[in-house]
């Protein structure tokens, strides 16, 4: 197995049963593993709700460490629709030329800084920096803000050896509270100010709602983007022919991005709370228990994807659910796609090959399922063209 390969720990359970039960604190989760079932459950928001106690649909559950409802993530239709109608246009800004140009300048500068013949630790020195700087474009806040976010490190919510750390999460909440007060005192054209002035269904957003949106852009767009970027770099390091192919065939870059999202599936799964007794894959799912929609498993479903465990750069039919499916599909997907697209353009332009030096995998554990999502440490050397 190559170092940049990502395993599929769910195959046997997916083929044999279609679901798997895993434990999480005192609230076990039935993971839904097949693509069709994942889509159906995502679509059926009445029976599989996102709107329970804040934090319950996240696995591991965060009910003990937060009370702020994340918006639109933890709201069901029909309310969800009003929030998305407000947010969708803002989160499409990455398609604008000015946004693209700024993102290109950021990534260009970052790549220049690491092509120096010295070893680079990609997670801290590249992916985290890239993600934090790009987030200033999405929020439309000053570039300098990213210095603070970078200083928080990759584990804003987590301390050494502890998966969930309420005190650490508080750093982010306190920061956002202060930013909201700043935007109230001095409105500008950043996302805070836009949200504070906005109405949904004829009602002004409350401070708590604004906080619920902003915290989600920080948390939902952090590990996911860092993993996507880091996995892409590791893949190119081990597959120089792929980087060369994308250089020669720019027309397949769009497909390659979707394929990376499918193969890497930066978000493994997301939970739902069952609202009425029902069945998942002929297995009873009782009211007030949890299921999860396992995007990572669905994306390797051999009944849909040919050679699911291979990266096929120009895969033509690729109905993946890496960005989710249905109502709650990823609000940050346009930004994330633009990041990957810009990264690939700049790498094709400037980097000949990447040497993989040494790595330490980041492996998620859900009982017997051990899934690599990325790296704790990824040392490489970028060689210029």
């Amino acid at each position, binding site marked *: 197995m190559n170092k940049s390969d990502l395993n599929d720990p769910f195959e046997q359970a997916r083929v044999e049963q279609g679901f798997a039960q895993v434990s999480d604190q005192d609230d076990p989760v039935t993971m839904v593993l097949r693509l069709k079932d994942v889509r159906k459950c995502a*679509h059926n928001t009445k029976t599989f709700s996102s709107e329970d106690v804040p934090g319950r649909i996240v696995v591991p559950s965060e009910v003990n460490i937060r009370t702020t409802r994340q918006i639109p993530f933890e709201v069901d239709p029909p309310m969800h629709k009003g929030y998305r109608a407000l947010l969708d246009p803002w989160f499409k800004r990455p398609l604008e030329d000015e946004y693209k140009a700024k993102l290109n300048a950021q990534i260009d500068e970052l790549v220049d800084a690491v092509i120096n013949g010295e070893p680079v630790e990609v997670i801290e020195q590249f992916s985290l920096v890239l993600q934090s700087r790009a987030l200033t474009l999405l929020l439309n806040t000053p570039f300098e803000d990213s210095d603070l976010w970078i200083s928080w490190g990759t584990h804003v919510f987590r301390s050494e050896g502890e998966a969930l750390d309420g005190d650490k999460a508080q750093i982010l909440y306190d920061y956002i509270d202060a930013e909201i007060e700043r935007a109230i005192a001095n409105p500008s054209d950043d996302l805070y100010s836009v949200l504070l002035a906005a109405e949904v269904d004829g009602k002004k957003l409350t401070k708590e709602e604004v906080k619920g949106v902003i915290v989600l852009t920080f948390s939902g767009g952090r590990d996911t983007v860092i993993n996507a970027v880091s996995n892409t770099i590791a893949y190119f390091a081990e597959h120089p022919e792929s980087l060369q192919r994308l250089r020669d065939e720019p027309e397949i870059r769009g497909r390659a991005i*979707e394929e990376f999202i499918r193969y890497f599936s930066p978000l493994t799964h997301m939970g739902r709370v069952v609202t009425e007794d029902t069945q998942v894959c002929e297995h009873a799912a009782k009211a007030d228990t949890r299921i999860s929609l396992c995007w990572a498993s669905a994306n390797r479903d051999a009944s*849909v994807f040919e050679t699911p465990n291979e990266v096929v750069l120009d895969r033509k*039919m*690729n*109905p*993946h659910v890496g*960005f989710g499916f*249905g109502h709650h*599909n990823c609000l940050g997907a346009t930004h994330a796609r633009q990041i990957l697209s810009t990264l690939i353009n700049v790498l094709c332009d400037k980097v000949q090959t990447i040497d993989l030096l040494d790595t330490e995998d980041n492996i998620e554990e859900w009982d017997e399922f051990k899934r690599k999502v990325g790296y704790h440490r990824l040392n490489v050397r970028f060689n210029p063209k």
Partner: protein
Amino acid sequence: MAKITFITQDDENIVLEADSGSVMALAVENGVSGIDGDCGGVCSCATCHVHVNPDQVSQTGEASEIEKDMLELDDNANEYSRLCCQIEISEKLDGLILTVAN
């Protein structure tokens, strides 16, 4: 050359011409509202959903299994639904009328 008409949700008629590529790409390049093409045409996002004029279904052909599975869970889907990134432009499409679903 094929001439294709898009009817948007606010009843705008947009007539476009092309001889190759996907119908989605043509619509996106020309800013047809309601067709976003988020996934670039790999059949993953369903933001390119159209209803084919019922008399012209034979021109576009049928949706594949994978495409049908996507459409099945789309609230605006009917028997004339297609994801237009899966429709390749050729002479055969000349005169086609598509109603944008979103």
